[in-house]
């Protein structure tokens, strides 16, 4: 017969061994969050902490006037944790990235950050 302690330990390990699904949060981005870059990037790519569903996830990029500067829809790059969207040719200025992600377990998250393209 199992002792109560053994059962409790087994339950604890079962909990820890459970498959991990989680909210998809921004881990890193390119251009980096809050960064200033000398060359205009051709895309914004976000590396999430969890896999995302590209059909239910968005990345929009706006200039200082609020005009969208992305082209096309976001798409996965490599695995399902990297979501990217292509950009138009960007003049110097500060840009705002707004993202909404739906993780593979359907949890929804969102975020906002800025990057700056420096004048030459």
């Amino acid at each position, binding site marked *: 017969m199992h002792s109560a302690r053994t059962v409790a330990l087994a339950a*604890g390990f079962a*909990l820890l061994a*459970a*498959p*991990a*699904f*989680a*909210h998809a*949060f*921004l*881990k*890193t*981005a390119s251009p*980096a*969050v*809050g*960064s200033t870059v000398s060359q205009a990037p051709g895309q914004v790519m976000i590396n999430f*902490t*969890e896999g995302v569903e590209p059909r239910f996830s968005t990345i929009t990029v706006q200039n200082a006037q609020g005009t969208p500067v992305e082209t096309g829809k976001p798409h996965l790059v490599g695995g399902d944790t990297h979501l990217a969207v292509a950009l138009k040719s960007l003049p110097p200025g500060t840009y705002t990235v707004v993202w909404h992600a739906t993780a593979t*377990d*359907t*949890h929804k*998250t*969102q*975020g*906002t*950050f800025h990057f700056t393209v420096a004048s030459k």
Partner: protein
Amino acid sequence: MRNALPAVTLACAGLAALNAAPAAAHVVVGNRVFPVTLTFDDPGVGDEATLPQFVYPPAPTGQNLYQFEWEYDKTITPTTAVIYNQGWDILQQQGMKTHTGLENAVLTGKWQAITFPRSETVVSLGVMEEFAGSAATQSIGGDETGATLPTFYFGQGLGPLPIGLLRPLAITGELSYSIPNHRLNSTGDNGGQPFFWAGGLSLQYSIPYLQSQVKNIGLPDFFGRMIPLVELDWFSPAAGPAPGLPETLTVAPGVIYMGDTYQVGLEALIPANSAAGSHIGAILQVHFFFDDMFPNTLGKPLFQ
């Protein structure tokens, strides 16, 4: 007295009860993630569990109290939840026999009433019901009779403000008013409880928010998951007699590590007035996010 403990021990137990207040859910509000605070409830609902939480609260000279606590949060709908809290305590007193026993069980019904993602604002309302304790519960300073506590919770992130590197700051709080099922008399010997206020306030700085929303300063992943914070806990009798239950204030600085499916928090418990205890205590909490671990079973509301 209502049990063999001196009045000052009961005051300590009151603080312990405050520390045992439900810690509930981490909550995602727009760009902001409010973590589970350690010494009082946080402002949202979720499917989660605390297991375990160890508390070594500040206590009067000559006493040591050790608390092993747990909690389970179950969402009924996406904005409502029922929360169960309890613990098992060891009370050592100089020159006296060591007492052990279960804490008073607490059930909370909670409604996340307001959620404004754009402004990172969340407000919840709840009612806590503390149940009367057995003789063993009373021997560790627990209450002989129960109480009902209407409670207000809030969380406010400062992310929308133009304050640069201070945008990761957030404030959360809780305020409860305890209505005893049996009112304490002026000599404190009828097994009742006083009417009292209990409050908590936290100021937290989210490194994950800094790294993902404001400026990536290149911290390693481990440090990028930290949320340093300070919590304040306050207890005060509200009306009528409250012998042996003075006002207490405790400051709890510490840090929370945010994992993907869990968080671990550690705080010091520093008495800010003499009634709050004679030494520094500590609290360690391990908390699991069932909504992330079991999104299709335990981790989702009973009714969507």
